[in-house]
């Protein structure tokens, strides 16, 4: 059988950096071939070469056995290659049919009736249920993704590239997506599936290729012999052990108490609605939820970075309403912010300076406002060594470091202050496996020390592995709090989709 898409020895360089190094990759008709790799391994570069966004420096691409020069996405679409981006490219004020037809028709007259009929037919054929008349703004994220897929199929795509398609989905929506993909396979559509979630990759793929530092290092043709451990080790190039060791531990007194919290956005629209949550010393409470359901506003409300429009935040017995951010830190808050570039670091300042953003005015680093160079350098060296921050020098700009090392600066300096409450917001987002392990170990160590931890993440696996209790946020409301023992993927997934579960809300009230 000839592959529908065959990539031969593709090399792509950016300056001195080789993003793709002689990559060879085959995609057969009707298969789901996953591309697995850490951030910066070259997955996006390869997809952009295939989709005609970048030209390759070396190598060839064959489509259906014929050599193809793909110079633009338009040509890629012409060859039957379609890409669904992680961030959707839809116009919210248009209907599904209008979005699908946009930029497609060449004739002057547009017969929407006919288009809608065609869409309906296609959506039934592939089990992609969407209403062509519905406005995109009224659709859920899962439905919008279906529109994106339909849009691509409608343009005649036989090769579907899905870039991290499950990042924005609940577990149930993911299952539905997989059902659709299996239907598409039957119809002869081939799928390149890009993800870093190992379990999902195993459940949907026929084959898996591993990309590491720009090279294809492994290609697993038979997945029956594979488990996440094997894939993860192949991704990083050394043996890794997945999973975390967590000792049983009785939680202590309540450290954070959030009562009927209300937070509005700048336009005075309510975002967080009567949110209740408590976190006790020595326990990790995971806050699960699909991205954009009010997590940022909740964190900012709890950390004193956004004004509250109702309710209260009690930290270590002190009522914190209306106090400045500094008071929260003094009361024992440690905050690993969700956006390390915007909130966690001053990228243009040095590694050394970034290690002291909270503590610079404290003794022994400052005396009578004068910086004590010796004490600062000593402490910085200690932090760099203890947290294994890889930097050429302490004077290097923080922006020059890799994401993992940047996050280690933040995690290192925050935990060194021994906070009583740790808010860890998406602490491993975009990190490689090694750095992720490190951050998880740090969070567990804080828990052992008796720190109360609020872990906010969109990665359900991470939440389930670390948390003692799992709270779920949906459209700014707390859907329920579930103890770890009862927190199955299914139960949490339903709550994430906004389906209130009587049992779960019963636990929340207790």
């Amino acid at each position: 059988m000839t592959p529908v898409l065959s990539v031969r020895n593709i090399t792509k360089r950016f300056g001195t950096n080789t993003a793709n190094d002689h990559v060879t990759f085959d995609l057969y008709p009707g298969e789901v071939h996953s591309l697995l790799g850490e951030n910066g391994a070259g997955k996006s570069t390869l997809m952009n070469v295939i989709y005609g966004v970048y030209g390759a420096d070396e190598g060839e691409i064959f489509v259906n056995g014929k050599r193809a020069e793909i110079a633009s996405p338009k040509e890629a679409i012409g060859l039957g290659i379609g890409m669904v981006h992680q961030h959707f490219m839809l116009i919210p004020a248009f209907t599904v049919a209008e979005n699908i037809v946009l930029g497609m028709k060449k004739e002057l007259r547009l017969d929407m009736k006919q288009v809608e009929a065609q869409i309906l037919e296609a959506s039934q054929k592939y089990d992609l249920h969407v209403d062509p008349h519905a406005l995109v703004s009224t659709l859920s994220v899962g439905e919008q993704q279906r529109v994106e897929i339909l849009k691509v199929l409608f343009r005649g795509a036989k090769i579907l590239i899905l870039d991290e398609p499950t990042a924005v989905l609940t577990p149930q929506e993911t299952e539905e997506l997989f059902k659709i993909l299996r239907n598409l396979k039957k119809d002869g559509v081939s799928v390149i599936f890009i993800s870093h979630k190992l379990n999902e990759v195993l459940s949907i793929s026929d084959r898996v290729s591993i990309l590491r530092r720009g090279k294809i290092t492994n290609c697993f043709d038979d997945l029956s012999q594979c488990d996440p451990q094997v894939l993860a080790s192949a991704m990083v190039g050394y043996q890794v052990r997945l999973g975390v060791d967590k000792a049983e531990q009785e939680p202590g007194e309540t450290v954070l108490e959030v009562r009927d919290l209300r937070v509005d956005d700048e336009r005075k629209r309510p975002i967080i609605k009567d949110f209740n949550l408590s976190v006790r010393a020595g326990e990790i409470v995971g806050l699960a939820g699909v991205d954009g359901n009010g997590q940022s506003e909740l964190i900012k409300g709890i950390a004193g970075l956004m004004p509250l429009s109702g309710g209260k935040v009690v930290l270590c017995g002190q009522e914190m309403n209306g106090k400045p951010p500094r008071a929260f830190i003094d009361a024992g808050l440690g905050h690993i912010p969700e956006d390390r570039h915007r909130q966690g670091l001053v990228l243009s300042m040095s590694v050394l300076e970034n290690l002291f953003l909270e503590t610079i005015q404290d003794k022994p680093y400052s005396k009578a406002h004068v910086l004590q160079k010796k004490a600062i350098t000593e402490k910085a060296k200690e932090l760099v060594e203890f947290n294994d921050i890889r930097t050429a020098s302490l004077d290097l700009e923080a922006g020059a470091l890799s994401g993992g090392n940047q996050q280690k600066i933040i995690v290192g300096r925050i935990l060194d202050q021994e906070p009583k409450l740790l808010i860890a917001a998406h602490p491993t987002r975009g990190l490689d496996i090694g750095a992720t392990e490190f951050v998880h170990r740090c969070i567990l160590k804080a828990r052992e020390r008796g720190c109360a931890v609020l872990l906010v993440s969109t990665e359900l696996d991470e939440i389930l592995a670390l948390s003692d209790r799992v709270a779920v946020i949906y459209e700014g409301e707390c859907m329920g709090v579930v103890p770890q023992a009862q927190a199955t993927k299914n139960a949490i997934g339903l709550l994430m989709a906004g389906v209130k579960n009587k049992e779960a809300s019963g636990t929340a009230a207790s």
Partner: protein
Amino acid sequence: MNKRVRSVLNSLISVVLALVLAFVVIGILLMWRGYDPAATFLALFKGAFVGKSNLSASLVLAIPLILGGLGIALSFRCGIFNIGGEGQLYLGAFAATWLGVNLQGLPFFLHIPICLLGSMLFGGMWALIPGWLKIKKGYNETITSVLLNYVGLYFVNYTLASFFKGEGTLNNQSPKIQESAMLSRLIPGTELSTSLYLTIAIVILFWFIFYKTDIGFKLRAVGANGEAARTSGVNTGKYLLIAIITSGALSGLAGSVQILGYQHLLVQNFSPNTGYDIISVALMGSLHPVGVALAGFLLGALRSGASVMQIMMGVPVTILYIIQGIVILSVLGFSYAKIDFIGLVSGLFSDSKRGMEKEAAK
């Protein structure tokens, strides 16, 4: 090479290159108009640097530029853009003159500091208005501060035409200040006063606060990433206010040193555009205290040299503004493009070494 040394060298090289570029352009312009470029530049250079009186004239012009430039550099570094130097400078000069005229019988060691502090207070309060509007109401400080320039400038003009007009003169000017408020001369026969010492002290003080104290640390953090600073507990509003008030106070001081130093009375439009020139100085000096001092001195010297050039060669002083414009545009262009001159030069000698440094950085 140390990163800091490298960045300092880079800014120096960019200023020198900018100057070369400016002089090439001016040279062409001069040849076109039939002047001798070499002789003209020599006259400019001599007028700026050679001889006691020329050098002190340069310093006299440089002092207000350096003082005001430091304030602007501080505010820009902190991320609040004070363009209101002109109004702050005039109000500062007004306050110093009023105190200098109306306080009588004070010894000089009280009278001078009172006048200087008065000018700082007025300049600072004038800057507080856009600062407060920015922090409390979110109004754009560049617009409010630049509009307040006109209010400040015309208020001072009004006082000089009415209640603060000196007797026995047709000009709109204030009475002369008391002797006890005058700064003493450093070199007899020149206009250079002890304000030079004050300026040097303030440059050093600023450098110290900027790089050696926790206050400077936070000012820089707020300017480079206000949100990260706020998240880590810095009261960003407070630091923005400190920055713009200090900036205004220094603009006020830039006005008062001219009055107490050599003008001794306040005339309408006594220091035109200085409030805008200090912005140029701050940018040319890469917003670094020492850089600002050098840039201020350079601009002062060019100004003073240009008037000598005009007398000797008949070349109009206004070409100086072309030089100033080209220099600022090029310096900003170089820093915007982040050209690493040291890297370029060393790269010519060893390409591999740079690659290794980059690897190590990762």
